[in-house]
Protein backbone atom coordinates (compact mmCIF):
# COMPACT_ATOMS: atom_id res chain seq x y z
CA UNK A 1 0.00 0.00 0.00
CA UNK A 2 2.52 2.53 1.14
CA UNK A 3 4.88 1.57 -1.68
CA UNK A 4 2.32 2.57 -4.33
CA UNK A 5 1.75 5.93 -2.74
CA UNK A 6 5.38 6.87 -2.35
CA UNK A 7 6.56 6.82 -6.02
CA UNK A 8 3.46 8.80 -7.04
CA UNK A 9 4.42 11.52 -4.67
CA UNK A 10 7.70 12.04 -6.57
CA UNK A 11 7.09 10.74 -10.11
CA UNK A 12 10.32 12.16 -11.59
CA UNK A 13 12.74 10.43 -9.30
CA UNK A 14 10.73 7.22 -8.96
CA UNK A 15 12.84 5.12 -11.34
CA UNK A 16 16.13 6.37 -9.98
CA UNK A 17 14.86 5.86 -6.44
CA UNK A 18 13.93 2.27 -7.26
CA UNK A 19 17.27 1.59 -8.94
CA UNK A 20 19.16 3.10 -6.03
CA UNK A 21 17.18 0.96 -3.66
CA UNK A 22 18.02 -2.16 -5.66
CA UNK A 23 21.76 -1.37 -5.71
CA UNK A 24 21.53 -0.69 -1.99
CA UNK A 25 19.90 -4.07 -1.48
CA UNK A 26 22.73 -5.86 -3.27
CA UNK A 27 25.35 -3.92 -1.29
CA UNK A 28 23.47 -4.76 1.89
CA UNK A 29 23.42 -8.49 1.09
CA UNK A 30 27.11 -8.53 0.19
CA UNK A 31 28.03 -6.93 3.52
CA UNK A 32 25.67 -9.11 5.56
CA UNK A 33 26.82 -12.37 4.01
CA UNK A 34 30.52 -11.49 4.14
CA UNK A 35 30.20 -10.78 7.85
CA UNK A 36 28.13 -13.91 8.43
CA UNK A 37 30.64 -16.14 6.67
CA UNK A 38 33.69 -14.62 8.38
CA UNK A 39 32.09 -14.71 11.83
CA UNK A 40 30.71 -18.22 11.50
CA UNK A 41 34.17 -19.47 10.52
CA UNK A 42 35.54 -17.71 13.59
CA UNK A 43 32.92 -19.33 15.84
CA UNK A 44 33.36 -22.77 14.32
CA UNK A 45 37.16 -22.61 14.34
CA UNK A 46 37.68 -23.85 17.93
CA UNK A 47 35.67 -26.98 17.06
CA UNK A 48 37.80 -27.56 14.01
CA UNK A 49 41.00 -27.00 15.98
CA UNK A 50 39.86 -29.43 18.65
CA UNK A 51 39.02 -32.14 16.13
CA UNK A 52 42.18 -31.59 14.14
CA UNK A 53 44.36 -31.72 17.27
CA UNK A 54 42.53 -34.82 18.47
CA UNK A 55 43.49 -36.72 15.32
CA UNK A 56 47.16 -35.69 15.14
CA UNK A 57 50.20 -37.71 16.08
CA UNK A 58 51.84 -35.87 18.98
CA UNK A 59 54.75 -34.35 17.02
CA UNK A 60 52.34 -32.59 14.64
CA UNK A 61 50.78 -30.73 17.55
CA UNK A 62 53.88 -28.60 17.89
CA UNK A 63 54.56 -27.48 14.33
CA UNK A 64 54.06 -24.07 12.83
CA UNK A 65 52.49 -23.37 10.35
CA UNK A 66 49.97 -25.84 11.71
CA UNK A 67 49.27 -29.16 10.08
CA UNK A 68 45.61 -28.37 9.38
CA UNK A 69 44.62 -31.84 8.25
CA UNK A 70 46.38 -34.48 10.36
CA UNK A 71 48.54 -36.92 8.45
CA UNK A 72 48.32 -39.75 9.32
CA UNK A 73 44.88 -39.51 10.95
CA UNK A 74 45.34 -41.01 14.38
CA UNK A 75 42.05 -42.66 15.27
CA UNK A 76 44.03 -44.55 17.88
CA UNK A 77 44.26 -41.31 19.93
CA UNK A 78 40.72 -41.94 21.05
CA UNK A 79 41.51 -45.44 22.20
CA UNK A 80 44.60 -44.21 24.00
CA UNK A 81 42.86 -41.25 25.66
CA UNK A 82 39.89 -43.29 26.80
CA UNK A 83 41.89 -46.37 27.72
CA UNK A 84 44.04 -44.68 30.38
CA UNK A 85 43.43 -46.64 33.60
CA UNK A 86 43.80 -43.46 35.68
CA UNK A 87 41.00 -41.84 33.68
CA UNK A 88 38.24 -44.42 33.28
CA UNK A 89 36.18 -42.52 30.71
CA UNK A 90 33.80 -45.46 30.25
CA UNK A 91 32.93 -45.06 33.94
CA UNK A 92 32.61 -41.28 33.60
CA UNK A 93 30.20 -41.84 30.74
CA UNK A 94 28.22 -44.43 32.66
CA UNK A 95 28.05 -42.18 35.73
CA UNK A 96 26.87 -39.21 33.67
CA UNK A 97 24.18 -41.32 32.05
CA UNK A 98 22.95 -42.73 35.38
CA UNK A 99 22.63 -39.22 36.74
CA UNK A 100 20.92 -38.05 33.54
CA UNK A 101 18.29 -40.80 33.68
CA UNK A 102 17.54 -40.23 37.35
CA UNK A 103 17.35 -36.45 36.94
CA UNK A 104 15.29 -36.49 33.75
CA UNK A 105 12.67 -38.92 35.02
CA UNK A 106 12.41 -37.14 38.36
CA UNK A 107 12.16 -33.70 36.90
CA UNK A 108 9.61 -34.57 34.24
CA UNK A 109 7.37 -36.47 36.65
CA UNK A 110 7.46 -34.01 39.52
CA UNK A 111 7.21 -30.90 37.38
CA UNK A 112 4.24 -32.25 35.43
CA UNK A 113 2.35 -32.84 38.63
CA UNK A 114 3.22 -29.48 40.15
CA UNK A 115 2.56 -27.57 36.93
CA UNK A 116 -0.85 -29.23 36.62
CA UNK A 117 -1.73 -28.05 40.09
CA UNK A 118 -0.72 -24.48 39.31
CA UNK A 119 -2.40 -24.51 35.90
CA UNK A 120 -5.76 -26.06 36.72
CA UNK A 121 -6.65 -26.33 40.38
CA UNK A 122 -8.09 -23.61 42.56
CA UNK A 123 -6.95 -23.29 46.14
CA UNK A 124 -6.28 -20.58 48.71
CA UNK A 125 -2.63 -19.58 48.79
CA UNK A 126 -2.01 -20.54 45.19
CA UNK A 127 -1.10 -17.04 43.97
CA UNK A 128 1.36 -16.48 46.80
CA UNK A 129 3.02 -19.83 46.19
CA UNK A 130 3.31 -19.16 42.49
CA UNK A 131 4.94 -15.79 43.16
CA UNK A 132 7.43 -17.53 45.46
CA UNK A 133 8.11 -20.06 42.73
CA UNK A 134 8.89 -17.29 40.25
CA UNK A 135 11.08 -15.52 42.80
CA UNK A 136 13.24 -18.63 43.22
CA UNK A 137 14.10 -18.39 39.52
CA UNK A 138 16.28 -15.39 40.29
CA UNK A 139 17.90 -16.87 43.40
CA UNK A 140 21.66 -17.40 43.00
CA UNK A 141 22.65 -20.97 43.80
CA UNK A 142 25.60 -20.13 46.14
CA UNK A 143 23.28 -18.87 48.85
CA UNK A 144 21.90 -22.38 49.45
CA UNK A 145 25.01 -24.33 48.49
CA UNK A 146 26.71 -24.74 51.87
CA UNK A 147 23.74 -25.83 54.01
CA UNK A 148 22.76 -28.23 51.23
CA UNK A 149 26.22 -29.74 51.40
CA UNK A 150 25.98 -30.01 55.17
CA UNK A 151 22.55 -31.63 54.90
CA UNK A 152 23.69 -34.21 52.34
CA UNK A 153 26.83 -34.82 54.36
CA UNK A 154 24.71 -35.51 57.46
CA UNK A 155 22.63 -37.95 55.44
CA UNK A 156 25.81 -39.73 54.37
CA UNK A 157 25.12 -38.91 50.73
CA UNK A 158 28.46 -37.30 49.89
CA UNK A 159 30.36 -39.38 47.37
CA UNK A 160 27.15 -40.87 45.99
CA UNK A 161 24.91 -39.70 43.14
CA UNK A 162 22.03 -38.92 45.52
CA UNK A 163 22.81 -35.20 46.08
CA UNK A 164 22.88 -34.77 42.30
CA UNK A 165 19.69 -36.67 41.55
CA UNK A 166 17.28 -36.58 44.48
CA UNK A 167 16.58 -32.80 44.33
CA UNK A 168 15.38 -33.26 40.74
CA UNK A 169 12.43 -35.29 42.07
CA UNK A 170 11.19 -32.19 43.89
CA UNK A 171 10.46 -30.02 40.90
CA UNK A 172 12.35 -27.13 39.34
CA UNK A 173 10.96 -23.63 39.07
CA UNK A 174 11.75 -22.92 35.44
CA UNK A 175 10.38 -26.22 34.13
CA UNK A 176 7.24 -25.83 36.25
CA UNK A 177 6.72 -22.33 34.91
CA UNK A 178 7.08 -23.41 31.26
CA UNK A 179 4.78 -26.42 31.72
CA UNK A 180 2.16 -24.39 33.53
CA UNK A 181 2.02 -21.89 30.67
CA UNK A 182 1.60 -24.75 28.22
CA UNK A 183 -1.03 -26.64 30.25
CA UNK A 184 -3.10 -23.48 30.53
CA UNK A 185 -3.37 -23.36 26.74
CA UNK A 186 -4.92 -26.86 26.58
CA UNK A 187 -8.73 -26.57 26.26
CA UNK A 188 -10.55 -27.57 29.43
CA UNK A 189 -13.24 -29.39 27.43
CA UNK A 190 -10.85 -32.24 26.64
CA UNK A 191 -10.29 -32.76 30.32
CA UNK A 192 -13.97 -32.55 31.18
CA UNK A 193 -14.81 -35.18 28.57
CA UNK A 194 -12.33 -37.55 30.23
CA UNK A 195 -13.76 -36.76 33.66
CA UNK A 196 -17.31 -37.57 32.55
CA UNK A 197 -15.93 -40.94 31.46
CA UNK A 198 -14.79 -41.36 35.05
CA UNK A 199 -11.09 -40.49 34.82
CA UNK A 200 -9.33 -39.45 38.01
CA UNK A 201 -7.02 -36.42 38.14
CA UNK A 202 -3.95 -38.58 37.71
CA UNK A 203 -5.53 -40.36 34.76
CA UNK A 204 -6.38 -36.99 33.25
CA UNK A 205 -2.74 -35.92 33.55
CA UNK A 206 -1.48 -39.23 32.21
CA UNK A 207 -3.89 -39.66 29.29
CA UNK A 208 -4.96 -36.14 28.35
CA UNK A 209 -2.39 -33.57 29.46
CA UNK A 210 0.88 -35.42 28.89
CA UNK A 211 0.16 -36.65 25.33
CA UNK A 212 -0.82 -33.10 24.34
CA UNK A 213 2.26 -31.58 25.96
CA UNK A 214 4.97 -33.47 24.13
CA UNK A 215 6.49 -30.25 22.68
CA UNK A 216 7.03 -28.56 26.04
CA UNK A 217 8.15 -31.81 27.67
CA UNK A 218 10.73 -32.28 24.91
CA UNK A 219 12.04 -28.75 25.44
CA UNK A 220 12.42 -29.34 29.16
CA UNK A 221 13.95 -32.79 28.68
CA UNK A 222 16.52 -31.47 26.22
CA UNK A 223 17.52 -28.44 28.30
CA UNK A 224 17.68 -30.53 31.48
CA UNK A 225 19.86 -33.07 29.73
CA UNK A 226 22.20 -30.32 28.53
CA UNK A 227 22.47 -28.53 31.89
CA UNK A 228 23.08 -31.77 33.69
CA UNK A 229 25.66 -32.96 31.18
CA UNK A 230 27.52 -29.67 31.58
CA UNK A 231 27.16 -29.37 35.34
CA UNK A 232 30.59 -29.06 36.89
CA UNK A 233 30.36 -27.52 40.34
CA UNK A 234 27.90 -29.99 41.90
CA UNK A 235 29.72 -33.15 40.87
CA UNK A 236 32.96 -31.45 41.88
CA UNK A 237 31.62 -30.79 45.36
CA UNK A 238 29.86 -34.08 45.96
CA UNK A 239 31.99 -36.71 44.21
CA UNK A 240 35.43 -37.37 45.64
CA UNK A 241 36.13 -40.80 44.23
CA UNK A 242 37.51 -40.67 40.67
CA UNK A 243 35.42 -43.75 39.83
CA UNK A 244 32.28 -41.68 40.42
CA UNK A 245 33.29 -38.63 38.33
CA UNK A 246 31.08 -37.35 35.56
CA UNK A 247 32.47 -36.57 32.12
CA UNK A 248 32.87 -32.83 32.78
CA UNK A 249 34.76 -33.39 36.03
CA UNK A 250 36.76 -36.25 34.52
CA UNK A 251 37.86 -34.06 31.64
CA UNK A 252 38.93 -31.26 34.00
CA UNK A 253 40.83 -33.84 36.04
CA UNK A 254 42.57 -35.05 32.88
CA UNK A 255 43.38 -31.43 31.99
CA UNK A 256 44.92 -30.89 35.40
CA UNK A 257 47.38 -33.75 35.10
CA UNK A 258 51.02 -32.89 34.86
CA UNK A 259 52.51 -33.22 31.38
CA UNK A 260 49.23 -33.90 29.66
CA UNK A 261 49.40 -34.91 25.99
CA UNK A 262 47.43 -32.33 24.05
CA UNK A 263 46.22 -34.59 21.26
CA UNK A 264 44.83 -37.07 23.79
CA UNK A 265 43.28 -34.28 25.86
CA UNK A 266 41.54 -32.96 22.75
CA UNK A 267 40.37 -36.47 21.86
CA UNK A 268 38.79 -36.70 25.30
CA UNK A 269 37.23 -33.25 24.83
CA UNK A 270 35.66 -34.42 21.57
CA UNK A 271 34.16 -37.38 23.39
CA UNK A 272 32.71 -35.10 26.08
CA UNK A 273 31.33 -32.50 23.68
CA UNK A 274 30.16 -34.68 20.79
CA UNK A 275 27.07 -36.30 22.38
CA UNK A 276 25.54 -32.87 23.05
CA UNK A 277 26.31 -31.69 19.52
CA UNK A 278 24.56 -34.78 18.16
CA UNK A 279 21.62 -34.17 20.48
CA UNK A 280 21.47 -30.60 19.22
CA UNK A 281 21.18 -31.74 15.61
CA UNK A 282 18.47 -34.25 16.53
CA UNK A 283 16.45 -31.85 18.66
CA UNK A 284 17.43 -28.49 17.19
CA UNK A 285 13.91 -27.10 17.40
CA UNK A 286 13.55 -27.99 21.06
CA UNK A 287 16.84 -26.23 21.85
CA UNK A 288 15.94 -23.07 19.96
CA UNK A 289 12.41 -22.95 21.33
CA UNK A 290 13.58 -23.60 24.86
CA UNK A 291 16.09 -20.75 24.79
CA UNK A 292 13.65 -18.41 23.11
CA UNK A 293 10.97 -19.14 25.70
CA UNK A 294 13.48 -18.25 28.41
CA UNK A 295 13.81 -14.81 26.92
CA UNK A 296 10.13 -14.21 26.41
CA UNK A 297 9.34 -14.70 30.05
CA UNK A 298 11.35 -11.56 30.82
Amino acid at each position, binding site marked *: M*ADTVFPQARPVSAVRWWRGKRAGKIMHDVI*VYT*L*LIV*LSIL*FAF*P*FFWMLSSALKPEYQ*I*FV*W*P*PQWIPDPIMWSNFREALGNPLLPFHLFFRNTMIIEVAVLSGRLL*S*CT*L*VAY*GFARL*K*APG*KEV*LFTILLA*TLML*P*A*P*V*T*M*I*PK*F*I*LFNKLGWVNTFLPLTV*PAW*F*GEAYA*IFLMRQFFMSIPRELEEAARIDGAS*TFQVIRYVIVPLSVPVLTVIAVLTF*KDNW*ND*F*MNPLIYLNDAKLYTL*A*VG*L*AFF*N*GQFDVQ*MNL*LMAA*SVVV*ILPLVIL*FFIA*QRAFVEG*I*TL*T*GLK*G
Partner: protein
Amino acid sequence: MTTVATRLSPQGTQRRRTQARRETLLFYLCISPWLIGFLAFTAGPMIASLVLSFTRWDMLSPPEWVGVKNYVHMFTADPDFWQSLKVTAVYTVFSVPLRLLTALFLAILLNEATRGVGIFRTAFYLPSIVASAAAAVLWSWILNPKFGPVNGALRLLGIKGPSWFSDPRYALWGLVIMSTWGVGGEMLIFLAGLKSIPQQLYEAAEIDGAGRWVRFTRVTLPMLSPTIFFNFVMSMIGSFQTFDSAYVISTARAGTIGGPMNSTLFYMLHLYRNAFGWQKMGYASALAWVLFMIILVLVLLTLRSSALWVYYEAERKE
Protein backbone atom coordinates in the same frame (compact mmCIF):
# COMPACT_ATOMS: atom_id res chain seq x y z
CA MET B 1 -34.15 -28.98 37.81
CA THR B 2 -33.99 -25.39 38.99
CA THR B 3 -36.74 -25.95 41.56
CA VAL B 4 -34.96 -28.99 42.89
CA ALA B 5 -31.72 -27.09 43.08
CA THR B 6 -33.32 -24.17 44.95
CA ARG B 7 -35.04 -26.50 47.35
CA LEU B 8 -31.84 -28.36 48.07
CA SER B 9 -29.73 -25.22 48.16
CA PRO B 10 -28.35 -25.66 51.71
CA GLN B 11 -27.11 -29.08 50.71
CA GLY B 12 -25.95 -27.64 47.36
CA THR B 13 -23.63 -25.13 49.02
CA GLN B 14 -22.56 -27.89 51.34
CA ARG B 15 -21.57 -30.01 48.36
CA ARG B 16 -19.84 -27.11 46.66
CA ARG B 17 -17.87 -26.47 49.81
CA THR B 18 -16.74 -30.11 50.00
CA GLN B 19 -15.88 -29.89 46.34
CA ALA B 20 -13.72 -26.79 46.96
CA ARG B 21 -12.08 -28.41 49.95
CA ARG B 22 -11.29 -31.49 47.91
CA GLU B 23 -9.81 -29.33 45.15
CA THR B 24 -7.65 -27.48 47.67
CA LEU B 25 -6.42 -30.78 49.01
CA LEU B 26 -5.70 -32.02 45.50
CA PHE B 27 -3.82 -28.81 44.68
CA TYR B 28 -1.55 -29.17 47.68
CA LEU B 29 -1.07 -32.84 46.88
CA CYS B 30 -0.02 -31.97 43.33
CA ILE B 31 2.40 -29.25 44.29
CA SER B 32 3.75 -31.10 47.34
CA PRO B 33 6.95 -32.22 45.57
CA TRP B 34 7.86 -28.62 44.83
CA LEU B 35 6.69 -27.36 48.22
CA ILE B 36 8.75 -29.96 50.08
CA GLY B 37 11.70 -29.33 47.78
CA PHE B 38 11.37 -25.59 48.27
CA LEU B 39 11.40 -25.94 52.05
CA ALA B 40 14.17 -28.55 52.14
CA PHE B 41 16.49 -27.30 49.39
CA THR B 42 15.79 -23.57 49.08
CA ALA B 43 14.07 -21.83 51.99
CA GLY B 44 15.60 -23.98 54.72
CA PRO B 45 19.16 -23.75 53.39
CA MET B 46 18.76 -19.99 52.83
CA ILE B 47 17.90 -19.40 56.47
CA ALA B 48 20.51 -21.93 57.58
CA SER B 49 23.25 -20.20 55.62
CA LEU B 50 22.24 -16.84 57.09
CA VAL B 51 22.49 -18.32 60.60
CA LEU B 52 25.74 -20.12 59.75
CA SER B 53 27.22 -16.86 58.53
CA PHE B 54 27.30 -15.71 62.17
CA THR B 55 29.21 -18.77 63.31
CA ARG B 56 32.61 -20.33 63.00
CA TRP B 57 32.34 -23.96 61.97
CA ASP B 58 34.78 -26.49 60.56
CA MET B 59 32.18 -29.32 60.45
CA LEU B 60 34.17 -31.28 63.04
CA SER B 61 33.58 -29.41 66.28
CA PRO B 62 30.17 -27.86 67.02
CA PRO B 63 29.53 -24.44 65.42
CA GLU B 64 30.56 -21.47 67.53
CA TRP B 65 28.52 -18.25 67.55
CA VAL B 66 30.77 -15.33 66.61
CA GLY B 67 28.25 -12.60 65.79
CA VAL B 68 29.22 -10.32 62.92
CA LYS B 69 32.90 -11.27 63.18
CA ASN B 70 32.86 -13.07 59.80
CA TYR B 71 31.58 -9.96 58.09
CA VAL B 72 34.04 -7.71 59.89
CA HIS B 73 36.88 -10.06 58.96
CA MET B 74 35.74 -10.12 55.34
CA PHE B 75 35.76 -6.36 54.94
CA THR B 76 38.79 -5.53 57.05
CA ALA B 77 41.17 -8.48 57.19
CA ASP B 78 40.71 -10.59 54.08
CA PRO B 79 42.58 -9.07 51.12
CA ASP B 80 41.53 -12.06 48.99
CA PHE B 81 37.91 -11.02 49.44
CA TRP B 82 38.65 -7.63 47.89
CA GLN B 83 40.79 -9.22 45.20
CA SER B 84 38.01 -11.68 44.31
CA LEU B 85 35.47 -8.87 44.26
CA LYS B 86 37.75 -6.84 41.99
CA VAL B 87 38.36 -9.76 39.60
CA THR B 88 34.65 -10.52 39.41
CA ALA B 89 33.69 -6.88 38.91
CA VAL B 90 36.31 -6.24 36.21
CA TYR B 91 35.26 -9.41 34.43
CA THR B 92 31.59 -8.43 34.63
CA VAL B 93 32.16 -4.86 33.45
CA PHE B 94 33.95 -6.06 30.34
CA SER B 95 32.41 -9.41 29.54
CA VAL B 96 28.72 -8.54 29.97
CA PRO B 97 28.69 -5.59 27.51
CA LEU B 98 30.96 -7.49 25.12
CA ARG B 99 28.68 -10.51 25.23
CA LEU B 100 25.54 -8.45 24.73
CA LEU B 101 27.01 -6.45 21.84
CA THR B 102 28.29 -9.60 20.14
CA ALA B 103 24.98 -11.39 20.64
CA LEU B 104 23.00 -8.41 19.36
CA PHE B 105 25.28 -7.94 16.37
CA LEU B 106 25.00 -11.63 15.40
CA ALA B 107 21.23 -11.58 15.85
CA ILE B 108 20.91 -8.48 13.64
CA LEU B 109 23.03 -10.12 10.94
CA LEU B 110 20.88 -13.26 11.07
CA ASN B 111 17.74 -11.15 10.97
CA GLU B 112 19.00 -9.30 7.89
CA ALA B 113 19.91 -12.47 6.00
CA THR B 114 17.33 -14.22 3.89
CA ARG B 115 18.93 -17.50 2.90
CA GLY B 116 21.05 -20.00 4.78
CA VAL B 117 20.05 -18.54 8.13
CA GLY B 118 19.85 -22.02 9.68
CA ILE B 119 23.51 -22.86 9.01
CA PHE B 120 24.82 -19.57 10.40
CA ARG B 121 22.53 -19.74 13.40
CA THR B 122 23.84 -23.22 14.20
CA ALA B 123 27.46 -22.06 13.87
CA PHE B 124 26.87 -19.20 16.30
CA TYR B 125 24.72 -21.15 18.72
CA LEU B 126 26.67 -24.40 18.97
CA PRO B 127 29.53 -23.10 21.19
CA SER B 128 27.03 -22.16 23.88
CA ILE B 129 25.96 -25.76 24.48
CA VAL B 130 29.55 -26.79 25.24
CA ALA B 131 30.13 -27.27 28.97
CA SER B 132 32.09 -24.33 30.33
CA ALA B 133 34.54 -26.81 31.87
CA ALA B 134 35.13 -28.40 28.45
CA ALA B 135 35.30 -25.00 26.77
CA ALA B 136 37.97 -24.02 29.28
CA VAL B 137 40.03 -27.08 28.38
CA LEU B 138 39.66 -26.31 24.70
CA TRP B 139 40.47 -22.61 25.06
CA SER B 140 43.54 -23.16 27.15
CA TRP B 141 44.84 -25.02 24.11
CA ILE B 142 43.68 -22.37 21.64
CA LEU B 143 45.32 -19.68 23.76
CA ASN B 144 48.46 -21.75 24.25
CA PRO B 145 51.30 -19.19 24.19
CA LYS B 146 53.61 -21.16 21.88
CA PHE B 147 51.52 -23.53 19.81
CA GLY B 148 48.06 -21.99 19.93
CA PRO B 149 46.48 -20.62 16.75
CA VAL B 150 45.69 -17.23 18.29
CA ASN B 151 49.29 -16.40 19.11
CA GLY B 152 50.29 -17.97 15.82
CA ALA B 153 48.01 -15.56 13.97
CA LEU B 154 49.34 -12.66 16.04
CA ARG B 155 52.88 -13.69 15.09
CA LEU B 156 51.91 -13.41 11.42
CA LEU B 157 50.97 -9.81 12.14
CA GLY B 158 54.31 -9.31 13.83
CA ILE B 159 52.83 -9.14 17.32
CA LYS B 160 54.24 -11.22 20.11
CA GLY B 161 51.19 -12.82 21.72
CA PRO B 162 50.94 -12.87 25.53
CA SER B 163 51.16 -15.99 27.68
CA TRP B 164 47.42 -15.69 28.35
CA PHE B 165 46.50 -18.05 31.19
CA SER B 166 50.01 -18.15 32.65
CA ASP B 167 50.37 -14.37 32.77
CA PRO B 168 48.55 -12.55 35.57
CA ARG B 169 48.08 -9.52 33.32
CA TYR B 170 46.27 -11.46 30.61
CA ALA B 171 44.60 -14.46 32.28
CA LEU B 172 41.36 -12.62 32.97
CA TRP B 173 41.20 -11.28 29.40
CA GLY B 174 41.57 -14.81 28.12
CA LEU B 175 38.46 -15.68 30.09
CA VAL B 176 36.61 -12.64 28.74
CA ILE B 177 37.42 -13.68 25.16
CA MET B 178 36.39 -17.23 25.90
CA SER B 179 33.05 -16.20 27.36
CA THR B 180 32.27 -14.24 24.20
CA TRP B 181 32.45 -17.50 22.27
CA GLY B 182 29.39 -18.79 24.16
CA VAL B 183 26.86 -16.05 23.46
CA GLY B 184 24.55 -18.31 21.44
CA GLY B 185 21.75 -18.29 24.00
CA GLU B 186 21.57 -14.52 24.26
CA MET B 187 21.76 -14.32 20.47
CA LEU B 188 18.71 -16.56 20.05
CA ILE B 189 16.79 -14.48 22.56
CA PHE B 190 17.71 -11.29 20.69
CA LEU B 191 16.74 -12.91 17.41
CA ALA B 192 13.31 -13.83 18.78
CA GLY B 193 12.98 -10.25 20.02
CA LEU B 194 13.89 -8.84 16.61
CA LYS B 195 11.41 -11.12 14.87
CA SER B 196 8.61 -9.92 17.13
CA ILE B 197 9.00 -6.26 16.15
CA PRO B 198 6.01 -5.45 13.91
CA GLN B 199 7.09 -4.85 10.32
CA GLN B 200 4.68 -1.89 9.95
CA LEU B 201 6.86 0.17 12.27
CA TYR B 202 9.77 -0.13 9.83
CA GLU B 203 7.52 0.60 6.87
CA ALA B 204 6.09 3.66 8.58
CA ALA B 205 9.59 4.88 9.47
CA GLU B 206 10.77 4.35 5.90
CA ILE B 207 7.87 6.37 4.51
CA ASP B 208 8.85 9.16 6.87
CA GLY B 209 12.27 9.03 5.23
CA ALA B 210 14.19 7.28 8.01
CA GLY B 211 17.47 5.67 6.93
CA ARG B 212 18.88 2.42 8.25
CA TRP B 213 20.61 3.99 11.23
CA VAL B 214 17.58 6.02 12.30
CA ARG B 215 15.35 2.97 11.94
CA PHE B 216 17.78 1.04 14.12
CA THR B 217 18.02 3.66 16.86
CA ARG B 218 14.39 4.77 16.78
CA VAL B 219 12.55 1.50 16.11
CA THR B 220 14.77 -1.52 16.73
CA LEU B 221 16.47 -0.44 19.94
CA PRO B 222 13.37 0.84 21.77
CA MET B 223 11.31 -2.18 20.71
CA LEU B 224 14.14 -4.49 21.74
CA SER B 225 14.83 -2.79 25.07
CA PRO B 226 12.87 -5.32 27.21
CA THR B 227 14.93 -8.12 25.63
CA ILE B 228 18.16 -6.19 26.19
CA PHE B 229 17.08 -5.64 29.79
CA PHE B 230 16.38 -9.34 30.29
CA ASN B 231 19.67 -10.45 28.74
CA PHE B 232 21.58 -7.84 30.70
CA VAL B 233 20.15 -8.95 34.05
CA MET B 234 20.63 -12.67 33.38
CA SER B 235 24.11 -12.13 32.01
CA MET B 236 25.10 -10.09 35.05
CA ILE B 237 23.74 -12.67 37.51
CA GLY B 238 25.63 -15.39 35.64
CA SER B 239 28.82 -13.38 35.44
CA PHE B 240 28.94 -12.80 39.19
CA GLN B 241 28.72 -16.56 39.71
CA THR B 242 31.46 -17.50 37.23
CA PHE B 243 33.18 -20.60 38.50
CA ASP B 244 33.70 -23.55 36.13
CA SER B 245 35.98 -22.01 33.52
CA ALA B 246 38.15 -20.11 36.00
CA TYR B 247 38.47 -23.17 38.24
CA VAL B 248 39.45 -25.49 35.39
CA ILE B 249 41.95 -23.09 33.85
CA SER B 250 43.56 -21.78 37.00
CA THR B 251 44.00 -25.16 38.68
CA ALA B 252 45.50 -26.69 35.54
CA ARG B 253 47.49 -23.83 34.01
CA ALA B 254 48.62 -21.97 37.11
CA GLY B 255 48.46 -24.80 39.62
CA THR B 256 46.43 -22.86 42.19
CA ILE B 257 42.81 -21.83 42.47
CA GLY B 258 42.47 -18.35 41.04
CA GLY B 259 46.05 -18.17 39.79
CA PRO B 260 48.36 -16.97 38.44
CA MET B 261 48.85 -14.55 41.34
CA ASN B 262 45.13 -14.43 42.15
CA SER B 263 44.48 -12.78 38.78
CA THR B 264 41.50 -15.08 38.15
CA LEU B 265 40.39 -15.42 41.75
CA PHE B 266 36.68 -15.07 41.08
CA TYR B 267 34.34 -14.55 44.00
CA MET B 268 32.96 -18.07 43.66
CA LEU B 269 36.45 -19.55 43.67
CA HIS B 270 37.23 -17.75 46.92
CA LEU B 271 33.94 -19.01 48.38
CA TYR B 272 34.56 -22.56 47.16
CA ARG B 273 38.07 -22.54 48.59
CA ASN B 274 36.86 -21.36 51.99
CA ALA B 275 34.02 -23.88 52.16
CA PHE B 276 35.45 -27.02 50.60
CA GLY B 277 39.18 -26.40 50.78
CA TRP B 278 39.52 -24.93 54.25
CA GLN B 279 36.23 -26.12 55.81
CA LYS B 280 35.37 -22.59 56.93
CA MET B 281 31.63 -23.15 56.58
CA GLY B 282 30.59 -20.12 58.60
CA TYR B 283 32.84 -17.69 56.77
CA ALA B 284 31.88 -19.16 53.39
CA SER B 285 28.20 -18.73 54.27
CA ALA B 286 28.87 -15.09 55.03
CA LEU B 287 30.59 -14.77 51.64
CA ALA B 288 27.55 -16.39 50.00
CA TRP B 289 25.18 -13.90 51.63
CA VAL B 290 27.32 -10.93 50.63
CA LEU B 291 27.32 -12.22 47.04
CA PHE B 292 23.55 -12.62 47.20
CA MET B 293 23.16 -9.05 48.45
CA ILE B 294 25.48 -7.67 45.76
CA ILE B 295 23.51 -9.42 43.03
CA LEU B 296 20.22 -8.33 44.56
CA VAL B 297 21.30 -4.68 44.72
CA LEU B 298 22.60 -4.75 41.15
CA VAL B 299 19.38 -6.29 39.86
CA LEU B 300 17.27 -3.79 41.79
CA LEU B 301 19.37 -0.89 40.48
CA THR B 302 18.95 -2.16 36.92
CA LEU B 303 15.25 -2.58 37.53
CA ARG B 304 15.02 0.97 38.90
CA SER B 305 16.93 2.36 35.94
CA SER B 306 14.80 0.40 33.50
CA ALA B 307 12.05 3.01 33.64
CA LEU B 308 14.47 5.34 31.88
CA TRP B 309 15.46 3.11 29.02
CA VAL B 310 13.14 0.12 28.71
CA TYR B 311 10.10 0.63 26.57
CA TYR B 312 7.07 -1.51 27.34
CA GLU B 313 4.29 -1.30 24.84
CA ALA B 314 1.69 -2.34 27.41
CA GLU B 315 2.52 0.71 29.56
CA ARG B 316 2.18 3.00 26.60
CA LYS B 317 -1.35 1.78 25.91
CA GLU B 318 -2.63 2.80 29.33
